[in-house]
């Protein structure tokens, strides 16, 4: 009996040892999975489909036009989204019922509809229903509105959350200094709310960067083509997947700095 206890004692692990063992096991599983995948993959085939340097090189410099267009579409749609979304957010928190109802309906509709459908509606539905309608800037106007409508719904919800996150005492202080309701909104609440929503708005910008790949449904020319469409055209022309890799990397070239920027802005706000 006594002997059994002394023998069992070294076998019993401390909590720290058990944690270390559990972590070691997870590493082991991870290494095994990676090794298995590496062994199973046909690396030559993969290299042949994705890493054709001459095909990648052939995409330049033409790809820069589509890269630039992706940026322009994103910025236009985001600008439209902000210009419409912020007032919608203000209407959402209005004391006047009809404003709230309209804003709620607006958000529900444009958040609920797929961006692709809205883009179709703007590009084809509206011109059919209102013959002779001209979007300012042609396809650029269509994109700004088509993607911007969806975006404005998301932006409105983010900004509304930001407005509601501004402490009540800030409003009371402004009002007790004699600021009107509107003046308080403009001078005190909105500036603070917009700082609060920098992270979700950056997120929205990243989403828009990717949603700009839907623009091809409007029918684009070489001059107005965005990155995804360009990569897909190249894919068809070369019967090789390398253009997709190049296109994907160029998207990351846009979205990763945005994410870093968002994190930096977020940290700056935290320090306050």
């Amino acid at each position, binding site marked *: 009996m006594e002997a059994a206890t002394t023998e069992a004692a070294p076998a019993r692990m401390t909590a720290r040892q058990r944690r270390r063992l559990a972590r070691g096991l997870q590493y082991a599983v991870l290494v095994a999975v990676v090794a298995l995948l590496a062994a199973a993959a046909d690396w030559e085939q993969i290299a042949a489909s994705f890493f054709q340097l001459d095909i990648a090189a052939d995409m330049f410099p033409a790809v820069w036009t589509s890269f630039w267009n992706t940026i322009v579409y994103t910025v236009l749609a985001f600008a439209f989204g902000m210009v419409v979304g912020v007032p919608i957010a203000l209407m959402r928190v209005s004391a006047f019922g009809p404003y709230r109802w309209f804003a709620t309906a607006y958000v529900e509709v444009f958040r609920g509809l797929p961006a692709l459908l809205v883009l179709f509606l703007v590009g084809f539905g509206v011109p059919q229903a209102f013959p002779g309608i001209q979007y300012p800037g042609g396809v650029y106007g269509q994109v700004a509105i088509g993607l911007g409508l969806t975006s404005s719904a998301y932006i409105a919800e983010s900004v509304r959350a930001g407005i509601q996150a501004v402490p009540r*005492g800030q409003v*009371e*202080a*402004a*009002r*007790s200094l*004699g600021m009107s309701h509107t003046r308080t909104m403009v001078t*005190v609440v909105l*500036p*603070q709310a917009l700082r609060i929503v920098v992270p979700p708005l950056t997120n929205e910008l990243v989403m828009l960067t990717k949603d700009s790949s839907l623009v091809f449904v409007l029918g684009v020319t070489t001059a107005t083509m965005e990155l995804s469409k360009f990569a897909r055209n190249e894919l068809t022309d070369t019967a090789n997947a390398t253009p997709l890799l190049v296109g994907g990397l160029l998207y990351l070239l846009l979205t990763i700095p945005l994410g870093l920027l968002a994190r930096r802005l977020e940290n700056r706000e935290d320090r306050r």
Partner: protein
Amino acid sequence: MTAPIVTIAGLHKRFGDNEVLRGIDLEIAEGEVVCLIGPSGSGKSTLLRCVNLLETPTAGTITAAGHDMTGPDADLDAARRDIGMVFQHFNLFSHLSILDNLVVPQRRVRKTPKDEAVAEARRLLAEVGIEGKERARPAQLSGGQQQRVAIARALAMKPRLMLFDEPTSALDPELVGEVLSVMKGLAAEGMTMLVVTHEMAFAREVADRVLFLDGGVIVEQGAPAEVLTDPKTERARTFLHRVLHPVD
């Protein structure tokens, strides 16, 4: 005798089923310093917040700083310019620098030209003893400093009357004095002040009159020496004993 600067008559305030103020009548003379004391939930803060209509009274009339606050033609924005307010949690505008906390309200509300607003802000900050912090953000200041800035911000609107809602309750004990001494200076300059406070020593020294509130009514009022030393009602006696001898 001049007309009172604050006149409250038949004031009731109800939050849902909870009637916080049950008939308050109060007159405050120009230059008078009135301290409101009483247990928590007695309605002190609500009464104070009714004066500038941060809370809308359920019934009753209020005039303050020459404005009919409860009348149908009340211009609250204009009225609040003449009624400064200082909050327990300071409520400085967190996105603005210390200087801008004083400059922006002057420019936006009083339409003061920029140079003039900046000069006035600097003068007031010096007066409350805040130097070299103009470009700092509120969060970089201590609570006592923030509260002094908040007082200066309220004064920048050139109010005729100042409301203080437990101005030292959120402060670390060693920072209370610097705020109270600014308030004392203000009282000495003749500012009319209505102060909700638990600082009995301040009330005793600075107040012209102390009001004891309990259950939404003014239970007792008079000179601080009377109310604080020799309260007539049992409720006031119990309250003061608890405040002055918390460990007993």
